[in-house]
Structures are given as C-alpha cells and as structure tokens.
C-alpha cells in the first residue's frame, strides 16, 4: 500500500523553512488538531455553535454564494479550454475549495464524485510534510491521479493550487477532469487490461508540477510521452490550472471583502453546517434500521489472450451493501463480506468508494448546491482491508475502479429506496440504475493517422431504475453523472475512426415490472479508415447487477456481438442489406446481414484485439431494473412498449402475461380481458409451483453443501468467508453450516 506517511523530513530543505499554517503552526499540526477536535466534540473542528450563521444568516449566505459563484464560474470558463469531448460535451470536470487541512467547503457543478476524493489527496500531501519538501508556496501547482492517495480511478486527473493570504495558507483550489487516455498498458481511460498498478499508466503521485503559476517543462514532457493523446492532455491540464486560478481569485476577493477572520470562521462553520444538514436530511427521509442489498457481477476473463494465466480467469464479485441508519440520523455504510481484490483493474481504494457514495447521495438525498465535506463527516463507512472495496495493496490496479463501483452501488440505491418508501416518499423510490456499459474502448491510429485513445461517452445515457410512480428514465443518465448526453454522431465520427450504421432504442433491455426500468439503446458501427486499431468491450454479463425492487425484474444481462473480416464493404457497393441494429439477439440482424467471424457470446470484457476497416463493432447500452410485479403492468403501457420497440413481443406474453396482436399497420393491441385471464392462469401456475419456505431452504442448502453452484460463485464466497468474520458467521448461521465450512473450488 502507499506508505502511510514518511518520517518527518530532515535535511537541507528544512533550513529556513517557515510553517505555512495558521498562527505559526505547520499544516500537519493543523490537520492533527482538526481531527482531534472533531473526534472529541463530535462537531467538525469543534464548532459546536454556528455563530456566524445564527447571528448574521444573511452575511453567511452571501459569503457562501460568493465562494460557490467563483467555483461555478471557474468550471464554466475552464471547460472551454479543454478539448476532450469527455470534458466539453459530457462536462466531466469539477472544481472545489478546501480548507488548509483538505476538507471541502464548497463544490462547483459537475462530477460531484469528488466531494471527498481530492480531500484525501490534499491530506496525503499534508501528512507527508510536503510543506517542508518539496515545499508548498504561493504559485505552486500540484497534481495527483492515484486512487490510493485520493481519487476514483487513474483517469480522473486532479490539479491543486494552494491559496495564501499574507503568509498563511488559507485554502486549496482543486480541479479534476476525466482525461481521454491515461497511458495504461491498454488504451483508453477506463483501461480493462492492466492487472497490476504497474500497468495503470501515468502516475502522478501528488507531485509538484509547477511553481510561480507555471508548469514545469519536465512534467509536460513526461506527460506528453506518457499518454496516447498528449494534445487532449495538455489542454485538460491548462483547463484545470486556469480554473484553479479563478477559484483562487474568488477566494482572495472574498477575503478582501469580508476580512480574513470572518473567512476563517466561515469555512469551519460551512462544513459543520453541511454535517448537520445531512444528519437532518437522513432523519427526514429514512427510517432507522439495517438495510441490506447485495449485488453481484461477473468478470469473464478465462482464456483471454494477452493476459497471464493467473489473470485469465472468470471471477465473480460481491458487494454486500449494508446501510445502517441510526436514531440520531447516523448514516453508516459497510461492505463487510466483499470478496478479495484481484488481478484486474476494477479494484477500489477507499477514495473510489467515497466517490461512488457521494455521486449517488447528491442524486437522491441531497440534490443541492450546498454539499461539502460536512456530509462526509456525518457518515461512516467500513470497507474491510484486502477486499475489492479497500484495495490499498500497492500492486492492485485501479484504472477501471468503476467496473466494481457501478454494479456494487445499485445496492445503495435499493437500500435508500426502501427507506424513503417506508417514510412515504414514494416518488423518490428508484430501482437499480443500469450499468453504464458497454464501454466502447480502444486505441491506435485515428482516421487522420494520429495516435488516439477511444472511449465513447454515449454510455452516459443508460436506463434509469424504475420509479415508485412511473417507468425509469429511458437512455438519459449515468450512475456517475445524472446529466447524460450521447453526443452527436457527427462529433464522435469527427474524433473516432468509426462509421455509425445505426443508433436506436434496444428492446427488452429494461427490467420488467409494474413500472419497467428505463430502456437502453444500441449503436452499430463500422470500423472506419484506420490502419491500426485495437478495440475492446467492457460490460457486464452472466449475472444481474441491476436487480429489480418490490417484485420488479432485473434488466437484461450483457452480451457481445462484433464481427471481424466482414463482407460489409462489398455489401455497401452492391446495395445489399447491411445491419443497423440488433433488436433481438435470437433473430439477429447483424448475423443475417453480415458475413465474417462473429464474436457473438457473453464475453463482454476483453483484452483489446485488432479490428480493421469494415469490421463491425456493436455497442449496446443497458437498461434499469424494474419495480413491482410485471403482471400488474397496465395493458396500455405494454401496448406502448410494443409499439415503441421497448419490448420484444415474445416477452409481452411470457413476462407480462399480455395477449397482444399486431394490426396490419404495425400497431399493437393488447386485449385487456384476455390479458386478465392469462394473468390469472400465470398466478395460478405460480401458486402451483410454490413450496413452503422451509422446503425451499432445505433444497437450496443441499445445493450449497454439495457445491452445486457455479465455480465463480464458490470462489467468491470462499474469499468472503475468509476475509470477514461477520459475514462468515452470518452466512454459516443462515444456512446452518459447520464452522469449518468452505466450498470446494474448481470444476464447473
């Protein structure tokens, strides 16, 4: 793991060194004091009274709006400096203001994932006495992208600028952008391929990268050589620095107007205020108790060419998401029972886990502009060491941490939904959001012959979970960004060597239910005018990471369908049919309208492989989980689903019990009476099939004892049995298993 803090600096740099903290203290002393005060009083920094807010609520708000105004402005302006579509079209950037110790005071709009991640990175610098070596001075610039230090995944690159008032460091401006390529062993920004951290790409380990507001030339050269898309890199870095400097200006302006003492008081109070507000919100929205919602995901790498034997295996991950709400508004999240970290790039250090928590809480419980680290201080978490949820082992690769976070945290949404439902906030209920997958990723030469790393952010528009009062949002948001945007096809084709053959609704991706999940969509591309390209799929398959809620069904699980060595160009020339969609994999248009080597399987995670001009790459984006029994779905909604290609007709009958017919114009009619009859039959069949719970458990226990479950599941459970005492006891007690129980591994 990353060294928990080097011994105190000694050496020539120490000579002549003046502490940058307040009243002659070092930053490290300030941090330690802050932690002690918070620990002892239960209030942030020992602020037990919000004196400024209470005596002058107006002035308090005015200071907040000035600082936040500066952050939003920094983001809006800096966004235009960046070049990458991820930043410009999708808005993947965020600025924040931190206390000298690294606690966030206010955040801009943007990826709110980073409420706390940059905080960890600042604290890392403080704890490691950066103040003494390499020194923290006015005009310095620092940069980090290491999740074990404080980040979600390596492609979120952070820039920090210290803010001084006279001789004291009064805060930090932090900015983060999601870069196009991070120089990992495989191309892209959520690289699926690295199996250790040594392949994660460019390492910026909270480095000093500039002084006097100027970036060091050696840093620029290093980055230019270290990533596949140096031009995007350069502009993204300029965008972050320009934004940080604008934040610094806003802080200096505020101090000039309000006075330094008021500013100092304000930043403490604002965080304590954030803490109290979060607690109050928890009390309003949730019912105290334990909520438990495990989620599973498969990683199918067995036999994958390009990976060593120990990494080329199929595994399964477990996210046993437990949420405990206390009577005084305590909010605790535990992943106790998660499986071991592994030789893949989906491992999550604690910062990454915090990122996922905050991006989801700001979409559900606290969707406002006032969130800060106070909310973090109002919560607690347990990510057990050595698990995939706390992968601090130095060699653990983290480049695609989202690969675990996305499936894992549907459990948090379902837990919150049960809480708000119990309180009566039905309209706030959401089933599981969709996996933001497939990730179309690759690299090589673009259509102009330049080096490139690709990731299509079309995936920011997947289906939402079914709502308590309506269907889920179709193709409109991502778990990590509620403001999805597929982007224009013409913009993607401008920057990627791809030719769209179609982009449309993908039927039966959503989880069925009384209210169905939001639908996913699909894009079919021809690889276009590139001489050298590798591509990969990154997605889920083999299980259901977007389960339904209250009887709703999970959304469809993933598959891959790409075609190599096609006859596509010949088909174009001869006006023969070519594929533009694949509505039904059982009756595939891609199969029917394209010859070649069809990679048509459940291998949705691949090591990159070569694709050529005219090959077909198929990317379909997932749907959200359903809510309620599908047999309760109103017939006219089913009719609309059929007419809109949201549902394959055969599932209208089998899942919804709908009796539907298509008229000569192609419009569907669901017969309500016949449907009611069919549904009665299905319910009767369900009743006939039902067995008492005790019998069911007995038969399942036999399966457990005999190990008649998939080998990946057995392996995963063994890891959990080994790593967690709590989970082990709970599991053994539930099934009534002996203390020394372990699954046999191997076989099928």
């Amino acid at each position, binding site marked *: 793991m990353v060294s928990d803090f080097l011994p105190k600096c000694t050496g020539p740099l120490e000579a002549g060194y003046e502490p940058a903290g307040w009243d002659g203290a070092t930053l490290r002393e300030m941090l330690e004091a802050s932690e002690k005060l918070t620990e002892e009083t239960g209030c942030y920094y020992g602020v037990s009274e919000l004196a400024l807010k209470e005596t002058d609520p*107006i002035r308090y*708000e*005015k200071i907040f*709006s*000035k600082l936040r*105004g500066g952050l*939003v*402005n920094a983001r809006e*302006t800096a966004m*235009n*400096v960046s*070049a990458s*579509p991820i930043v*410009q079209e999708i808005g993947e950037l965020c600025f924040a203001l931190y206390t000298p110790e690294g606690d966030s005071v206010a955040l801009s709009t943007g990826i709110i994932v980073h409420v706390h991640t940059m905080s960890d990175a600042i604290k890392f610098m403080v704890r490691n006495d950066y103040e003494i070596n390499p020194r923290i001075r006015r005009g310095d610039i620092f940069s980090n992208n290491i999740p074990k230090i404080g980040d979600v995944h390596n492609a979120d690159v952070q820039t920090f600028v210290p803010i001084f008032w006279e001789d004291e460091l009064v805060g930090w401006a932090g900015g983060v952008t999601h870069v196009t390529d991070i120089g990992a062993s495989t191309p892209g920004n959520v690289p699926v391929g690295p199996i250790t951290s040594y392949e994660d790409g460019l390492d910026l380990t909270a480095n000093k990268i500039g002084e006097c*507001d100027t970036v060091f030339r050696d840093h620029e050269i290093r980055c230019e050589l270290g990533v596949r898309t140096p031009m995007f890199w*350069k*502009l993204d870095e*300029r965008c972050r620095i*320009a934004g940080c400097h604008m934040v610094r200006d806003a802080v200096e302006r505020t101090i000039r*107007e309000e006075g330094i003492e008021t500013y100092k008081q304000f930043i403490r109070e604002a965080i304590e*205020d954030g803490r*109290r*507000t979060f607690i*109050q919100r928890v009390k309003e929205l949730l019912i105290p108790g334990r909520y438990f919602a495990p989620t599973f995901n498969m990683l199918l790498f067995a036999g994958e060419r390009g990976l060593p034997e120990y990494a080329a295996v199929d595994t399964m991950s477990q996210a046993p998401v437990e949420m405990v709400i206390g009577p005084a508004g305590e909010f605790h999240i535990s992943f106790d029972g998660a499986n071991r970290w592994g030789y893949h790039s989906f491992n999550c250090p604690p910062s990454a886990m915090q990122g996922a928590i905050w991006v989801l809480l700001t979409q*559900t419980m606290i*969707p*406002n502009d*006032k969130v800060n680290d106070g909310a973090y201080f109002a919560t607690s978490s347990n990510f057990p060491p050595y698990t995939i949820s706390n992968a601090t082992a130095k060699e653990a690769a983290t480049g695609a941490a989202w690969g675990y976070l996305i499936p894992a945290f549907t459990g948090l949404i379902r837990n919150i939904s049960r809480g708000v439902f119990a309180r009566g906030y039905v*309209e706030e209920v959401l089933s599981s959001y969709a996996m933001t997958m497939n990730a179309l990723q690759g690299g090589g030469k673009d*259509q102009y012959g330049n080096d490139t790393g690709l990731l299509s952010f079309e995936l*920011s*528009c997947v289906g*939402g979970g079914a709502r308590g009062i309506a269907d889920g*949002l*179709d*193709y*409109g*948001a991502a778990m990590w960004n*509620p*403001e*999805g*945007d*597929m982007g*224009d*096809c*013409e*913009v993607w*084709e*401008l920057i990627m060597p791809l030719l769209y*053959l*179609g*982009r*449309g*609704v993908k039927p039966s991706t959503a989880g069925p239910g009384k209210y169905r999940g939001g639908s996913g969509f699909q894009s079919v591309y021809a690889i276009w005018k590139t001489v050298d390209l590798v591509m990969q799929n990154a997605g889920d398959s083999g299980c259901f990471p977007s389960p339904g809620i209250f009887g709703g069904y999970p959304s469809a699980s993933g598959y891959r369908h790409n075609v190599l060595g096609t006859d596509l160009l010949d088909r*174009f020339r001869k*006006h023969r049919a*070519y594929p*533009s*969609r694949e509505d039904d994999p059982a009756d595939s248009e891609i199969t029917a309208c394209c010859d070649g080597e069809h990679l048509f399987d459940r291998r949705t995670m691949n090591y990159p492989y070569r694709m050529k001009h005219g090959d077909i790459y198929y990317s379909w984006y997932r749907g959200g989980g359903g809510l309620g029994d599908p047999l309760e779905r109103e017939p006219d909604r089913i009719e609309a689903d059929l007419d809109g290609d949201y549902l394959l007709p055969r599932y209208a009958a089998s899942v919804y019990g709908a009796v539907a017919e298509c008229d000569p114009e*192609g419009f569907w009619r669901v017969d309500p009476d016949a449907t009611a009859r069919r549904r009665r039959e299905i319910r009767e069949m369900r009743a006939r099939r039902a067995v008492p719970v005790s019998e069911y458990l007995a038969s399942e226990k036999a399966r457990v004892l005999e190990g008649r479950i998939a080998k990946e599941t057995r392996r995963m459970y063994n890891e959990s049995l080994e790593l967690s005492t709590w989970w082990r006891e709970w599991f053994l007690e539930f099934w009534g298993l002996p203390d020394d129980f372990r699954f046999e591994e191997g076989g099928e």
Partner: protein
Amino acid sequence: MSSRHAPRILAIDAGGTMTDTFVIDEKGAFVVGKAQTTPDDEAQGFLSSSRDALSYWDTTVEEAFPSLVTGIYSGTSMLNRLLERKGRKVGVIVSKGMEDYFRLERGVQSYLGYSYSDRLHVCTHQHNEPLVPRHLVRGVPERIDVFGDAAIPLDEEAAARAVEELLDLGVEAICVNFLFSYRNPAHELQMKDIAEEVLERKGSEVPVTISSDHYSVRGDFPRLNTLTVEAFAAEPSRVHLRSIDSMVKEHGAHFDLRIMASHGGTISIESRELARTLVSGPIGGVIGAKWLCDHIGVENVFCTDIGGTSFDLAIITGGEYDVKTYPDMARTLFAIPLVEMDSVGEGTGSFVRINPTSCRIEIGPDSAGYRIGTSWPQGNIDTVTINDCDVVLGLINPDYFLGGDITLDREEALKSVQDQVAAPLGIDVYRAASGVVELFEDGLKNNVLSRIMGKGYAPVNYTLLSYGGGGPLHVGGIAEGMGFERVLVPAWAAGFSAFGCSCSEFEYRFNASLDLPVAPDISQDEKEGLVEMVNGQCAFLREKIVEEFSKSGVDEGEIVFRIFVRMQYMGQLRDLEVRTGFEWLDGPESLDEVIRDFEDLYAKVYALSARSPELGHLITQVVLSGTVEVEKPALPLEELYGDGPPTDASKGQRDVYWRGDWLKAGIWEMDRLKPGNRIAGLSIVESPATTLVIPPGWSAYLDEHWIFHLEPGKGV
C-alpha cells in the same frame, strides 16, 4: 392629422399573456401600449395594443399607420406551437439506422431547462414528447463519412419507397437530414430529386426540405431539430405573420412587416428560414443596448434585465455581443445562431423560502410571475416573493404599482415575511426582508461578476445597463461595491426590450460548417487554397442572402456583407467567432489577420496561458452577415435644465428600511423630472411602469437622452 407626433417606427412584442407596443416618432419621443395577446388571431392583439399606444398621442391606427416607415414584430406563437406540439404533420427521412433521433433526443433533452437541483435529482428527469412520432420517420441506406466521401451509396429504391410511405400516411411536409450532409450534400440532393419525382407521380405538392440547403452545419441532432421545427412550427406561423402583415397594410401602412430573429437582426416574414425567429423578444434588450451604446459612445456594456421570473444577462464587448451556435430553447437543441444571453431563474417574483432541513434561505427557482406575491391577494399566492420584501421595506409603493392599476397590501406582506422568513431565522421582519433582498442582489451580482471575470475583464471596464420592470429597483444594490465604469438606467427601462427590437438591423446571417484545418507550419500556397475555400463558401452564402433580400425588393448593391470566421484550436470542440471587416478574404495575409484576432480573442475569453497555437487551428464555420440600412429610432434629445428638480416632481418622503436603518427617502415622480436634474439618495423615483431606487451615498443624474446615470458619492 390631429396628433403633434408623427410616428415613424412601430415595434410589437407579443408575449405569452400581453402584447406590448412601442411607437417612436422622429424626435425619439415614444409611447408604450399594452393589450391581451390573442393566440388564435394575433392580428387582433397587435391592433388593440397599437391602438392603446397611439391613444396616448390622441391618434388612431388609421391616422398613424400611413406615416410609419418600419414595423418590427416579435412573438412567442411559434415557440408555443413547439411547446404544445401543435404543428404540421411532418415526415422525416434520415440515414438508415438513425430513425430514433426524436425519441433518444441525445439523452440530453431529458433535463434541459431544469434548475441545478433538479438536474442532479435524477428521478425528476423526463423525455419530451417526440417532435415527430417514430412511425413518421424513415431511414434510407446511405452514408457520407467525415471526409465527405460516399461510404455507402444512396439506395434509390428505398429512398422512393420512404417518400411514398410518408405521403400515404398523409404528411404535410418532408424533411431530409443525412449524416455529414454539411460535408457533402450529394446524397441529400439525390434524395430531393427522387422525392420530387415521387411527388410529381403522385400529384402531391408536399414541400421537401433538405438540411444541407437550410442549416448546413455540423451536429446531426440539432440540425435535424432545426429543420424539423422549420416545417413543423415555422411554416404555420408564416400564415399568421402574413395575416398580420396584410392587416397592417389594410390600415394604411406602406412597409413590409419584419420579424426579429435570434441572431439579433430582423428578417422578412417571407424568409425561407423562419425557425430563426423562434426566440426573439428577450434578445431585444441586448440589441437596444448595443444601439444605445453605439450612440452614446460606450464600447463595453453589461446588460441586465430583471423581470418577474428571471434575470437575463448579456455582455457587449468592443461594441459586439456574442452569438451562440447551438442554443437550446423549449428543451430542444438547435443549430441556429442566437445572441448569447444567460438567464438565471431569479426575478422579482421569485419565491423566498427557508429550507426546513438546513434553515437556510432559498430564492427561486420558481416564481409567482405576474401574480406578484402575497402582497397582492387577488394573485392567490401564499409564498413570500422578492416583491413582498420590497413592499415591506418601503421600496415599492403599494398604492402606485403599475401606476396604481393594482393595489398591494403591505400588511399582508409584513405578515407573510414575518411568518415565513423572519420567524424561522429568528430575526426581525425588516432585517429579514432586507437580508433577502441583499442576498437576491448579491446572487445577481455574482452572476454579473462571473460573466465579466470569465471574459478576463473587471467591472471597471464595463458600463452596467439596467432595464426590465425590476431592473431600476435593484440596480443600486447590484452596482454597489462593484466599481462599474458607469451605471445607466433608461427612463423607458420597462419597455426596453420592445424598443430594442426597433433598433435592430435588417440583417440575414447564414453560416456553414467547413472544418478546415490550418496547420501551424502551413505554406503561403496552402493558405491561399484555404482562403479560396472560405471565399467559395461565402459565395454560396452570399447567394442565399441576396435571394432573401430580393423578396423585400432589395438589390445586391444595397447590401453590406461581412465575413465572420468561427475557429478553434485543432482538436478542441468549442469555437470562437472572429468578426472581420472583410467582405471577402483577400490573400494569405487576411488569413493571418484572422488567426491573430483569434489568438487575442482566445486570451481574453479564457486565459493567456491557455493559448495553444502550436496545435494549429481549425476553421469550423464561416458566417456571412448581410445588412441593409433601415430607419432606426432617434435618441431623445432634450434641453438640459438645472440640477434641482421642479417642485411638482416631488411626492414628499417615505420611511424606508435600508440595510438595518430606517431612513427618510425622497419620493419623485419620474415623468415630472427634467433632463439635467440630479437626485440624491436615498431617493425613490416612481413611474407607472417601474421604480428606480437611488441608494444612500449615490445620486442619479438624468441626462439629455432621458437616461439616468447612477453615480456613487455625488450628492446634491
């Protein structure tokens, strides 16, 4: 003629509820009229509103219309047609596989127009009803690629079939939008030929439009939306506009009615691209500001328009406003130029609430709009608004709101502010009301500041211009402590947007995507080639402009052309508009000049350190503007009187709670003041349409053009 005024210009802004009329005579004297908007027959509202305005000059429509030389119209009927999805039955033909455009709406349209909080709060997001239902969209096998090459040839049989099927379904218009048609229109042109053959065979006259012919810019979805809205909502609006035009002519007018377009110019109602007039009213103020400042010799202006529901801001730098190329309106993305204007959801009708969770003040984003607040019981509003706070503080005269047309209830305002704001915060009711107003003004201030800083400037470089019904009331609060070069409030602030429409040029502005790379090490010969390509595109746009003007009987010789080049660094996605004074680019040197201007502009807009000329440049679009001289309003010019206002202008004094103290404020009737007068703060200048507050320590000087200059520290 019985009136001593000879009306020259008529400007009409038909809003959702009210139609405002602005009439100006040759000396710059003006009157404002109002009438209810009549959505079913806009001509009626137009007429009633004109009558109302002219009645102030004791004249009639029949008497006045023949003397008018210009009439400008802006309205919301097209926007309403779009919002309500009440348009023509349009069939759409797209590249095969892309038939779901309107349902997918790029995902992004599911939260456009939401407040920040709702954009985060994902369970509130909703897709729009598709502009065109899925069964009226047909895909045709074809593809042009990013290089403009035909990757997949057009399937002619499928093309003909698509047209036939759509006609059989009874469509009233057909729109064609193929991918990369802006790079190479060959397939769209081929498609149009095929469609015309089918139409002829079937004896149909359904119009067919292709995107490369109308909105030839990159961005397949915004381009499709624009083309479709043209057929769906704009063409039906043309029928209305023609009826208004003939009504005006029947009443003796000798001019062709022009409409305000989103790029800031006016165009003929016969223009082939009428969707450009979808949003026009709100930008009127910006155009008026530019005109005003051209006349009084001010280059940098920050425009602030405070209305009941929103705060609109725009910035004019070096005498030019910015233009957005992909704006969104009515939760729809467009590919038409729109005068850059930001709208913040905070106005004088914004609701004020104390968040029960955090006990913090929240203003907006929703508002009481024209229903004012709790102080107007007839409005049935039970939540406090900014207006209510202004009433509590004594800033608004409850008996002189809208000239006394409606009476406000100060007691009710006091009670609601006490119960809803002061009590939860544990502070005095006046302190609470004053705090809310300060916070409101501070929020607006931050917005102003961030736009100016974002441009790399400081307030001292700008003149703050304030208008809109609520502008003069809060301008002092916004200007305080900011250090603007000047703070100006026109006496006609309440009707400034309608006035602005009358100041706009008769201008067509067309753009076309080029995406021409300009490498850093390019040779003179290569530059020459690029210049030729830009000029080639300009020639195409020039033809369009000439054709449009010819509909109004304007000859090519009368048109003044200007090229604007939109460019960015290679690889970037946001471009900037470099406005040249050229009619054509002339040799490699002119390209060098454009690039130099771009570098300067970039450093101003973003940051000097962000300049990246080593990457090379990309010319994304060429824009051609063609303008023709038209009559504009004259600036009022009156003789200056002395400092001291006439005694009959004074309405006595009123107690006003100002930032923690009770002060005596002088009350003045605006119409009785004389140019040259100077009023010291704290004073309140009242007129039927608006209230100007002069803060303590400030004074207001009324100049010879009927513009108030708010100046700090100049008492009388």
